[in-house]
């Protein structure tokens, strides 16, 4: 499992920047939002967290299709399974790699983007915390959708339809958490809800992804 994560990181490093697609998209989306909103400070302050959340969701949605499609189409998955790895451990490795490679860079850029949008420090902290708590959920639904749609290759719109319903609660609580943080801090109930959503996502998404992979290998 560790070997697979290490290999994914090495492949990302060698991919000539392809792995940065998500984070570049994230930055472009925010920039367009700022331009579209007219760049007025009060509006940016009000809608900033929403822009960030939307940009994050779209950036991750964009990357779901690539999670398993290469490894399935070039035979790596069947060799991994024959090497004695269970499809569940392959799924968990991909889940961890997705958090590191796709959500990680976005998370690191969050404070910068927050400052760009003129958000106050508590709102930036709330934003970072809500994204952190939602990351396992985003990645778990990502590997689930990626595994279900692995045979369809990259760029299928179905993958967006499959994952969108699962991401909506994450978006709702993620946004609410940013506002609540400024009033109640970390004890805001939305953070517990987000943590709960992440646990549910892991409980549903990871086994479902593993089952989908097994089915896809046939």
């Amino acid at each position, binding site marked *: 499992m*560790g*070997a*697979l994560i*290490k*290999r994914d*990181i*090495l*492949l990302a*490093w*060698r*991919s000539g920047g392809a792995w940065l697609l998500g984070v570049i998209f994230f930055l472009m989306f925010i920039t367009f939002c700022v331009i579209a909103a007219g760049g007025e400070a009060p509006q940016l302050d009000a809608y900033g967290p929403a822009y960030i959340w939307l940009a994050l969701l779209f950036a991750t949605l964009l990357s779901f299709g690539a999670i398993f499609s*290469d490894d399935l*189409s*070039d*035979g*790596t998955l*069947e*060799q*991994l*399974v*024959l*090497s*004695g*790895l269970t499809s569940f451990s392959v799924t968990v490795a991909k889940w961890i790699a997705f958090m590191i490679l796709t959500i990680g860079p976005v998370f690191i850029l969050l404070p910068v983007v927050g400052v760009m949008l003129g958000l106050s420090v508590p709102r930036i902290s709330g934003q970072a915390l809500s994204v952190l708590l939602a990351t396992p959920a985003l990645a778990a639904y990502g590997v689930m959708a990626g595994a279900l749609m692995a045979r369809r290759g990259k760029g299928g719109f179905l993958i967006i339809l499959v994952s969108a319903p699962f991401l909506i609660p994450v978006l709702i609580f993620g946004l609410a958490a940013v506002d609540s943080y400024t009033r109640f801090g970390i004890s805001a109930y939305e953070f517990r809800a987000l943590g709960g959503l992440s646990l549910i996502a892991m409980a549903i998404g990871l086994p479902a992804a593993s089952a989908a992979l097994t089915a896809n*290998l*046939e």
Partner: protein
Amino acid sequence: MLKTRMDKTASPRPETLNVSRALATFGLDVSDLALSRGGHRLISGLTLTVAPGELLWVGGDNGIGKSSLLRVICGLSRPDEGYLGWTQNSVPCAATEVIAYQGHLDAFKPNLTSREALSFWADVMDKDIDVTHLLETVGLKSRADVPCGHLSAGQKRRLSLARIILSAKPLWIMDEPTAAMDADGVALIHGLIGAHIARGGSAIIASHQSPVIAGLRTRQLVLEAAS
């Protein structure tokens, strides 16, 4: 930095390419197997056993079901009906414990070098081996640091052969192992299969021409379309 981390598994211990170490005894039992692909029945009523030291050649026309049969034997896809069992030391076990598979797909990433690719698979299989020596065995020593994307089709087959050796599994399942191979490559494959069988391993090979391996009797399974 990442590169050295990948390479770490390659360095520590030299020469554990256990070509001479005896393999665990194993068995493959197939009875009344039926399988289909895309709703079309390919094989029915197949009964077959493979014991240590045997070479089984699976022949037949294109599309007759050779590859599908091999995938079923590997446990990668399920048969429609029938029994399929793998044993190790007379105890039933999972297919993954006894089977090494070389399919049509090479499963190597174009951006990793041959050495990195083998190190990765050694890591996955939890094997501690000398990758350089393994590459030498399959005649790829000079290509060790070439990205897999720059290898020819035959060289990729050699690399996947190295992965089979690396797995140290007793039953080799090979789909067209000599496809895209030069004469040296064919001799290499046959030599390695011969050595594998000599130490108690077995191989099931699907190809158009029966492999001729010196000193080995080949069992044949020729699939024919039902008339």
